[in-house]
């Protein structure tokens, strides 16, 4: 049922506590989080400069210039993060960091989990599938997100390259313009930003939902790396109960 139930050696001494998200996974997650926020806000301004900068002459203010600079810097940091994550997905990372999570439908197991997850979300089945990494459906949405990232990076550098024909980015990307007009490349860059915003809402909501329902420490795991095989509160309750049970078993003996 679970994808990783055989990897018992990952279990820590504390029952059910497992180190799932390695440092590069969490680091790139948070770098992406911050850079995407910065890129979206600055990008929105660049598309629609709603801040009125007023001065008699243009030599003083440089607002758009600075916003664009921040946008480009954030973009380079974002790309560095993606490169690190790509390396980790193919060579460096553990099983939960692998690129395989993004294409779950190729294995029967993945398809099974995806079906369960879908039924859970659609209120057909009560319980979500128990997995340690991403559930197959989540993995698939991350696959789409990686595709969005790729579109954003490509279209972004294509648009940047237009300012410097013959430069690096121009040479790497300008082949696209005879196929798709630069206006549509720009449109795509804008629309995908909105799609990423929509994804962020879905992502945070689903994480909260699964965390609340499964109590597997999903929300804190992206900070700490650790997830719970079972709800820690339940472990405490279980311990207490078994302690009580022992006590009730022995106490009557004493009374007698």
């Amino acid at each position, binding site marked *: 049922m679970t994808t990783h139930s055989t990897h018992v050696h990952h279990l820590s001494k504390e029952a059910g506590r497992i180190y799932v998200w390695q440092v590069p996974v969490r680091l790139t997650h948070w770098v992406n989080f911050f850079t995407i926020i910065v890129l979206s806000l600055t990008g929105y301004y660049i598309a629609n400069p709603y801040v*009125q900068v007023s001065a008699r002459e243009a030599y003083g203010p440089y607002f758009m210039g600075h*916003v664009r600079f921040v946008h480009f810097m954030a973009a380079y940091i974002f790309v560095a993060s993606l490169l690190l994550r790509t390396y980790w997905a193919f060579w460096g990372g553990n099983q939960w960091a692998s690129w395989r999570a993004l294409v779950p439908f190729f294995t029967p197991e993945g398809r099974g989990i995806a079906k369960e997850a879908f039924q859970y979300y659609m209120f057909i089945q009560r*319980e979500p599938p128990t997995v340690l990494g991403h559930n197959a459906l989540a993995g698939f949405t991350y696959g789409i997100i990686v595709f969005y990232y790729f579109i954003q990076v490509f279209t972004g550098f294509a648009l940047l390259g237009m300012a410097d024909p013959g430069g690096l980015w121009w040479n790497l990307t300008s082949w696209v313009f005879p196929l798709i*007009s630069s206006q549509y490349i720009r449109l795509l860059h804008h629309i995908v930003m909105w799609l990423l915003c929509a994804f962020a809402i879905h992502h945070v909501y689903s994480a909260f939902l699964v965390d609340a329902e499964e109590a597997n420490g999903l929300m804190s795991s992206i900070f700490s790396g650790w997830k719970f095989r079972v709800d820690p509160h339940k472990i405490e309750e279980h311990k207490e109960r078994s302690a009580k049970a022992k006590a009730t078993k022995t106490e009557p003996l004493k009374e007698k």
Partner: protein
Amino acid sequence: MPFETGNLKEALAQRGVSRRDFLKFCSAMAVTLALPPQFAPRVAQALEKAPRLPVVWLEYQDCAGNTEGLLRASKPTVAELVLDVLSLNYHETIMAAAGHQAEAALQETVTKQKGKYIAVVEGSIPTKDGGVYCTIGGRTALDLVQEIGGNAAAIIAVGTCAAYGGLPMASPNPTGAGGVGTVVKGVPILNLPGCPMNVQNLTATIVHYLTFETWPATDQFGRPLFAYGSRIHDDCERRAHFDAGQFVEEWGDEGHRKGWCLYKMGCKGPETFHNCPIVRYNEGTSWPVGAGHGCAGCSEPSFWDTMTPFYRRLPKIDLLGVEATAEQLGVGIVATVTGAFATHGVISAIRSKIQPIDRHEADLEEHLP
């Protein structure tokens, strides 16, 4: 044509153009071609010695705007003389000859100077229904351009219509129009798009050929790099206002009167490659952005369809007949997703109240020692 020999020196003297004006012209040409100033004398020498280069000017589906551009000069300039003296054999719109006489002149060039003349094409070529939508002297434009263009040393497609199809090609393109490059193969084609193209660039292209005996380097759309090598936005005189964040918000507002950036008024300078800000039109007096109107993106291959609406930054998105902007679409998607998940959240909360998950007990038994 009075100067059959192509002797420019003589022609200039006869028309009263001073040597000083001629050298000024040569310097300007060197600069337009992005050559170092040392090349000006070489340009002058080459032009003086250049053999006569026959040019035929063909017009198909167009508004004659490029011809207008050619004639726009208020006094005979050196550039005009160079074009005139060194070349024009046949120009459908402005030649004195008409009818059979004119066609004979054209045929003579095509047969006698085969492979040696330059065909300048203005206007798009309709291809639908056998090309019947544009005919001259009983022959279709398609047929004519394939014969005349196909036998030329090179074709210079002037204006966006000839280069890429332009306005006649705009959706739904009723005549099946396209640029010269789509119907003539095997001949070097230089595209000088623009609505109209800048005569300075046409002259410079020919001067380049006369000076170096090669055609100037071009980009992926066949446009000479000297004229289409950088974006309008990167050479624009209003660029400082763009970087400052000072934008015209409305026609005639304070920013507009002060000459601020036209980005928010739909200026297509950021997506258009052309040397308008440097060369300008009408003998260098002005150009669209200089005159206070945003760039329309007329020299891009996808003009007209992708550059409209002219007063917005981006094309509209057609959602099953309803037009939307990228922003409307994006906000719509985000709102829908938020609504969907909010609903899902409420239902999930109710579900977990009435039917809590009990699997954890079983898991505990399995995983605890």
